[in-house]
């Protein structure tokens, strides 16, 4: 057969470099979904480590557990006498631990909201409470300059670490080695404790009050945040500084990893969340919020970024799924018997690995404008490409193709005011878009050539043409202004260059 009809090739315009890399596009897909407001500033947000990744928000004297599906409150725990801190959900998602400003640590059953254990010992506010990986111990860090390890069944402190000189505001237990505890304090030091010897094995100075610490999986590297800087430490080589970066204007209050620990998120009082690539600690993306950020959390499946702010607002950004990921996540689900999906379930089956696949060639379906183009009905093709909801670039591609076929005039002549209207409207809408201007100016010229003698007969078209004229005029003025500014800027640049060279000689 002779060569098949070639479809209209739709232009692809280059993506401007400002729109950034694949990386930033990934993070941009986190669209602001909703914001919830609490009564006071949000001090902590922690995700449940198991599906469906609910998150516990601590604010004022209560801890609330929100669902990531609906963003509604699932449970409210408000059995605190003072301000609550650091509501953390255990590995199995059943228990929650929180400290409060009186120094009390309480363990709750999430389902019944009953207090299971109460641990007393701290006499200042407890800002950090964490479950140990074995689920039977709890780490607490308090403003009484101590960090303690509690035994949950016995409700008593096993170890007390007392070497800090100031409030202890950061702490964690290593996931890989439950004997290692890391704490950061306002005395600017980070200390590594060993539960087996009950002593400090390593102490590092951050240079600013430490607000948060994180440990990489494997336990070899840690990150500390204090002031506007984050510092990466190598524990294996004895606490050497690997990298220190300062990208925030104000104190960094919170840090978290993404699910695979390849990206680091930091939230700061300067309203920004920055995302770093942990290979080189370059900022790959940055999100701006409306208020200073106190805590930041990313769900383990990398779909929700939740930020808590001083004004009591919780901002949730949810990532839109890419089509591929969606289909992959759907593949695992078995459709309900009898549903529409059930009967169409074999459609995407692609055969087993060794199978010989007989390729079926579906008849190529042409778009409406392509069908008209094939029949050389240029006017109809243009109408089809001007219908509501068509993308501008498609219309532009068609106009370009008509120009190439020397058929633009043919497509434009012989229209009444109603059928000419969409074309002129399109011109008005897009004529100042620099990437389309050259083609649309040609189209405009042809329209004026063809219809100039009859424009005044239709009030509709006359009005549109006046609009178009006004738009072109403003654009011309704008260009003149821009040219002026460029000229004056060039003069400044040349002038500075001139003084440079005179100094040099």
């Amino acid at each position: 057969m002779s060569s098949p009809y070639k479809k209209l090739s739709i232009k692809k315009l280059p993506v401007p470099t400002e729109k950034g890399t694949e990386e930033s596009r990934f993070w941009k897909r986190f669209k602001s979904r909703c914001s919830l407001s609490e009564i006071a500033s949000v001090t902590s947000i922690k995700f449940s480590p198991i599906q469906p990744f609910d998150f516990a928000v601590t604010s004022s004297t209560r801890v609330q557990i929100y669902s990531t599906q609906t963003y509604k409150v699932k449970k409210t725990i408000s059995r605190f006498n003072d301000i609550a801190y650091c509501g953390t959900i255990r590995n199995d998602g059943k228990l929650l631990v929180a400290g409060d400003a009186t120094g009390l640590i309480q363990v709750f059953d999430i389902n019944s909201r009953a207090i299971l254990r109460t641990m007393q010992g701290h006499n200042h506010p407890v800002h950090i409470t964490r479950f140990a990986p074995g689920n039977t111990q709890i780490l607490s860090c308090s403003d009484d300059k101590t960090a303690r390890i509690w035994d949950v069944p016995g409700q008593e402190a096993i170890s007390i670490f007392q070497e800090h000189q100031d409030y202890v505001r950061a702490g964690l237990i290593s996931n890989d080695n439950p004997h290692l505890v890391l704490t950061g304090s306002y005395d600017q030091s980070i200390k590594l404790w060993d539960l087996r010897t009950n002593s400090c094995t390593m102490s590092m100075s951050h240079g600013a009050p430490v607000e948060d610490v994180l440990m990489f999986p494997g336990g070899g590297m840690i990150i500390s945040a204090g002031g506007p800087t984050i510092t990466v430490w190598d524990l294996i080589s004895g606490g050497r500084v690997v990298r220190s970066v300062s990208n925030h204007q104000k104190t960094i209050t919170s840090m978290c990893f993404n699910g695979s620990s390849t990206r680091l998120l930091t939230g700061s009082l300067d309203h920004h969340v920055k995302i770093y690539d942990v290979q080189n600690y370059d900022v790959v993306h940055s999100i701006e919020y409306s208020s200073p950020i106190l805590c930041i959390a990313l769900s383990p499946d990398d779909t929700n970024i939740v930020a808590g702010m001083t004004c009591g607002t919780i901002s949730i950004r949810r990532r839109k799924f890419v089509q591929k990921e969606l289909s992959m996540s759907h593949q695992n689900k078995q459709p309900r018997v009898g549903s529409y999906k059930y009967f169409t379930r074999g459609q995407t089956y692609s055969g087993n690995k060794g199978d010989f696949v007989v390729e079926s060639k579906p008849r190529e379906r042409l778009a409406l404008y392509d069908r008209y183009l094939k029949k050389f009905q240029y006017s109809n093709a243009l109408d089809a490409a001007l219908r509501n909801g068509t993308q501008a670039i498609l219309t532009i591609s068609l106009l370009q193709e008509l120009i190439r076929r020397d058929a633009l005039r043919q497509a434009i002549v012989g229209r009444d005011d109603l059928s000419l209207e969409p074309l002129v409207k399109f011109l008005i809408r897009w004529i100042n878009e620099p990437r389309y201007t050259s083609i649309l100016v040609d189209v405009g010229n042809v329209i004026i050539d063809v219809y100039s003698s009859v424009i005044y007969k239709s009030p509709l078209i006359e009005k549109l043409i006046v609009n178009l004229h006004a738009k072109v005029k403003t654009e011309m003025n704008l260009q003149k202004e821009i040219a002026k500014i460029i000229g004056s800027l060039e003069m400044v640049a040349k002038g500075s260059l001139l003084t440079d060279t005179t100094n040099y000689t």
Partner: protein
Amino acid sequence: MMLNPNDPQQLLSGSLDGTIKVWKYSDVELLKKYEFGIPIYRMVILASYPDRFFVVTGIPCKNASCRGKQKAQALLYFRFDKKDQPEMHLLCKSKSMCTGLVTSPDGEFLIISFLRTIRIIKIKLNQQKGQKWPKYTHSSNISCIAIHPSKPYISIGDEYGKITHMYCLKESQIQDPVKSSVHWHPHKVNSLAFTSDGTYLLSGGKESVLVIWQIETGHTQFLPRLGSEIRSVTISPDQTLYAINLLDNSIKILSAINLEIKQAVQGLKHAQVDASIYPLSTGLVIEPRNHLVVLNGLPGTIQFYNPHSDRHVMEHEVSQRTMISRAFEKDIVYPNVNHVSFSSNGNWMATVDSREDGETTPELYLKFWKFDPNSQTYVLNARIDNPHSKAVVSLNFHPGTNDTSLSVVTTGLDNKFKVWKINSESHASQVFKDSVSWMCKFVGSYRQYTPRATAFSQDGSILSVAYDSIITLWDSRSNVLRDVLTLLPNYEFIRHLAFTNNSPFLVVTTQNFLYVWNLLTCTIWWSYRIEAHHLAVDSKSTRFIIASNSEKLQECRLFVFEPQTAIPVMVHTVKDIVKAIAYFPRKFDEVSSPSNAFQSYIIYLNQNYDMLMIGENFVEKVH
């Protein structure tokens, strides 16, 4: 102009040099040669009269009043006797071009058509002198004719696309023939052919659509989008195959049953393109992967050609276009590919194509293509709209770089040269796939002079840009101007610029001079007064070649130089005007043989766009 006579092993060819030669085509042998002494335009012979020729010739114009513009043509009848002495009769003549000459299958009639008239000659009657032959005039210019194999009528195709059937071959209808016409073609009908049983008529024309008419019912069947204008259509005697000859220098053989292309013979495509609108701007580029020659094909395409096997390998569409016939009198302007360049390993190709019709905004695109090993074609990677604000003068890939750090230099009439670099992002995480893009990294200019040519040194360290009559040398890594070489003696514009291979010399040609610069001392090493039209550098040795055309003598002298001395290694004269020239690497098996006088072949295109290859001692005509 060829024709099959009644004995199937022989082939006759008539030519403008006034001879008819009889060939035995099964074993390429010249059997017989007839001398006529007048240029032959068309001829037929009849099966019943094997040594009688009906020949259309141009009459040499002796009359001063006819000024050769409108050539008179005449139909002559020759009979050769045993001693090969021609006996000549003038059958008819006309002042216009002959458009068709056919005989009826039973050998009774001979029909000749001129611009607007048709004459029918009854062959039996032509011994008796003074017979009045019917003469018909047609309302418009005739483009082709055909005789129905069994019924007494002829079909006439004209330049408005109308096909007229004229029933004029019966005695009773001679004076007042019945006419009927069908019209589908919007343009000139180039060829008509009846199937031998007379049920179908095939017609083809400028629209590149083959139309199959069922004569009884008037039903039509179309075979659209054949790729180019149809020049002629023939049908095999057993009616199973149709052969069509297209304007793009190809022959396609179709099966009559399902109209599928069975075989295609493809020559160099550029030959039939109007060179004034679509010039051979790419020159001859050697593709580094398979050593194919790349040059312009049809407008908007480039073709890959293998000179060793004389085969058209691939056609690559740089800008998509739909083959459509013009709607009005004006021809449609297609985009033209201006420049092609390949990266040193052939994985990347860069092209510049443009379209300018004088009315709408000109289009100018720089496109980057990546070789796809699965489909063995180049896939578009990036398109840059309007890389320069005016036409692009040159396009060069940086040699000696790998795929991750490629760069391309373009120069434009906007007095700028731009360095484009590949920009590959690779991501560690699985979420993103690696993406490759191209970006402009540097824009350079030199005192608002217009760049004329660019060249990279062989190792890629120096970029040389020639402005009017000044050569600038740039460090290609840091894009810093290193040196400026000025042609002091005269201010001719530089035409070509090339670094020689393996030696520190730079070859520069202007309109009348050839200069060789030594880059170590930055002085002119030697110069030569020669009108150099083309320059090519051998990539395997240090040599370079200069082609100097002489319009007057219709010949071209080729000078092969070593850069060290001004004495040419070889001078060769060919009887052609050279349009483009290049060194072509040998095949691998040939390279192994020692002491080759030439390291590479020289290939060139002549004025007829034939590609010729020069080896050791012979000129081999490739196409």
